[in-house]
């Protein structure tokens, strides 16, 4: 137990969700008398979770929305009591998991600093001592006597963050702190993370930002449907997590039908008017390769070019197809979109029934550091009919020695010449 900060054993959490569908006064009246036996629906947010967090570890929890990761954090914080299992915490825990909790909009910034400090257990005298540092760090000197409701959300977050980092806890729980604030604030956050990491603080970190998970976490668990699906080093878990998205984006996921095609299944960036015809060919397999012919899911500054390869199988004889590749970043923005027509490559234009064909795209590594997803598709020559597609079928992590802040990071050269 000495080197373990948090021990979670067989924890489950079930919520009782009351059915509240009272449409008539009579119904409400009857319900009043039934009182305690309102009907409930049980929601098993977490089923059977077991893990430990070691002292000094930066521990990540990832999962899709609604997978139970925030519930897990609230259980760790002691806000929820587990339905079953035990949680043992060895050390002083930060009491809150979000920034700015307990802020009162009607009070001045100054009063809120003291109020928030009291939640961390600092009395007025101790807070007086740190007050100036907090204000300086938040860069809000001029605003401290204004009511908090007149602050912008960015200012509120800055203030909250400046207070939160004063916490003298051994174990910190952070839920999506990066989701708010501007780039400048995020840089401050990241610097704080580095500080925590260097000072061997124990941190449990929940985020959707795979980049910071990969960069800071020593170990990550992936929660899916209330269970731990995978535990391990960030790279492994993130790859698995990202491929989970692919499954959900497969062609036959249930969704609203639009023109006979499920809307979410349409290839990325396709206008509604486009027709589809899936009877002609199908995409078999998609993978990424480096120039040496090895499969990859990560490239770095030494990689100038890589391949996106996929196999298509014709179901009939077809003429003139245009295969394409789209690379999207974590936000879903198109970074690169190419197809054979735009690339000007001459392809064999006639496909024969039951034959398989390998398509090979050679792409340049122009990316900024981050996670990217590859989608592939095959369309008719006039771009009006889609024959086959696979959305976000591969993940690609791009590693760079530094982050430029630009959208892309293409190779460039600089020369200086004396004139």
């Amino acid at each position, binding site marked *: 137990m000495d080197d373990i900060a948090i021990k979670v054993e067989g924890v489950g959490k079930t919520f009782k969700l009351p059915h509240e569908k009272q449409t008539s006064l009579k119904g409400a009246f009857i319900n009043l008398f039934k009182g305690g036996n309102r009907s409930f629906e049980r929601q098993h947010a977490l089923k059977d979770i077991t893990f430990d967090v070691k002292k000094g570890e930066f521990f990540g929890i990832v999962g899709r929305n609604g997978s139970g990761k925030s519930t897990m954090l609230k259980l760790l914080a002691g806000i929820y009591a587990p339905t079953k299992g035990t949680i043992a915490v060895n050390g002083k*825990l930060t*009491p809150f998991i979000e920034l700015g909790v*307990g802020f*009162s909009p*009607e009070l001045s910034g100054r009063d809120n600093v003291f109020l928030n400090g*009291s939640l961390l257990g600092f*009395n007025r005298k101790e807070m007086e001592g740190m007050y100036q540092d907090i204000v300086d760090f938040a860069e809000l000197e001029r605003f401290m006597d204004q009511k908090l409701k007149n602050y912008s959300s960015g200012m509120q977050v800055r203030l909250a963050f400046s207070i939160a980092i004063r916490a003298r806890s051994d174990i910190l729980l952070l839920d999506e702190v990066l989701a708010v604030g501007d780039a400048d604030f995020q840089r401050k956050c990241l610097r704080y993370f580095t500080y925590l990491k260097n000072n061997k603080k124990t941190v449990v970190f929940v985020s959707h930002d795979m980049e910071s998970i990969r960069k800071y976490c020593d170990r990550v668990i992936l929660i899916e449907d209330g269970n731990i699906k995978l535990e391990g080093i960030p790279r492994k878990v993130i790859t698995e997590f990202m491929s989970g998205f692919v499954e959900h984006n497969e062609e036959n996921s249930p969704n609203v039908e639009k023109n006979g095609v499920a809307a979410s299944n349409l290839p990325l960036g396709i206008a509604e008017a486009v027709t589809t015809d899936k009877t002609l060919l199908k995409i078999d397999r998609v993978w990424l390769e480096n120039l040496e012919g090895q499969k990859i899911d990560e490239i770095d500054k030494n990689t100038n070019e890589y391949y996106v390869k996929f196999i298509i199988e014709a179901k009939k004889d077809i003429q003139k197809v245009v295969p394409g590749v789209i690379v999207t970043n974590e936000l879903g923005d198109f970074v690169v979109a190419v197809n054979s027509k735009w690339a000007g490559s001459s392809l064999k234009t006639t496909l024969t029934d039951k034959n398989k064909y390998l398509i090979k795209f050679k792409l340049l590594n122009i990316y900024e550091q981050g996670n990217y997803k590859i989608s592939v598709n095959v369309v008719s020559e006039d771009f009006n009919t889609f024959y086959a597609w696979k959305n976000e079928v591969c993940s690609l992590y791009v590693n760079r020695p530094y982050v430029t802040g630009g959208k892309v990071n293409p190779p460039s050269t600089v020369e200086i010449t004396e004139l």
Partner: protein
Amino acid sequence: MIKRIFSKRNRVLLAELVRTDFKLRYQGSVLGYTWSLLRPLLLFTILYLVFIKFLHVNYGVPHSAVYLLVGIILWNFFLEVTAGSLGSIVQRGDLIRKIRIPRWIIVVSSSLSAVISLLLNFIVIGVFMVLNHVSVNIDLVWLPLILLEIYLFALGLAFFLSAAFVHYRDISYIWEVICQALFYLTPLLYPVSKLKWPIIKKILFMSPLTQAVQDARYVIVTHQSYTLSNAVHSILFRGMPFLIFILVFVLGISYFRKKSKTFAEDI
């Protein structure tokens, strides 16, 4: 246990929450804190005019104005603690859902603003005592105990009400009605000594409020205040209001403790 309850963190938090409550309460009002004094004073003026000047109710005691005032201020205190704390857990849902703090602190902090108001109001009572030439007697030393009884009784109810309110929002309406009833079941405006049937007096004195208010009047204003020992003669029954008080306090806290585990998900 006691050490844990009064840990530094809890004390700091309690102080800061009370300060916040007090600051927020009179925000945007011109007179601010003075309303804590002004409100019961105005209420008292109305009741004084109606019951003493117009209706000529004879309380059968000297200094009937102070006598009336003490009753009203104590009643107001009871009302402020219970009704004020009733919604406290729900209102502070943001804290409860996102921070691990002892839940009772929220109820206690909201009740403590009422305590501050009460202390301010005792300044008013003091002024009236001087104006009315009320002579202070040695029994006044019992006053803190009597106030503590009312406070803990109200706090026990506040714990129960605030926890029940999380599940049943009807509680606020029900409590309003009950308070109306309690207002008349406590001899605030009428002289209890003049009630016709002794049994009614006995029943009224089963309420800790009646017992405490009459005792407070006894120690502050006049020994002619009609108290528990005047109305109830059996020693066994004299214990009843205290038993009820302790029962309410203990049950209120244990109900709160039981329910507080799931506040975060129930709100």
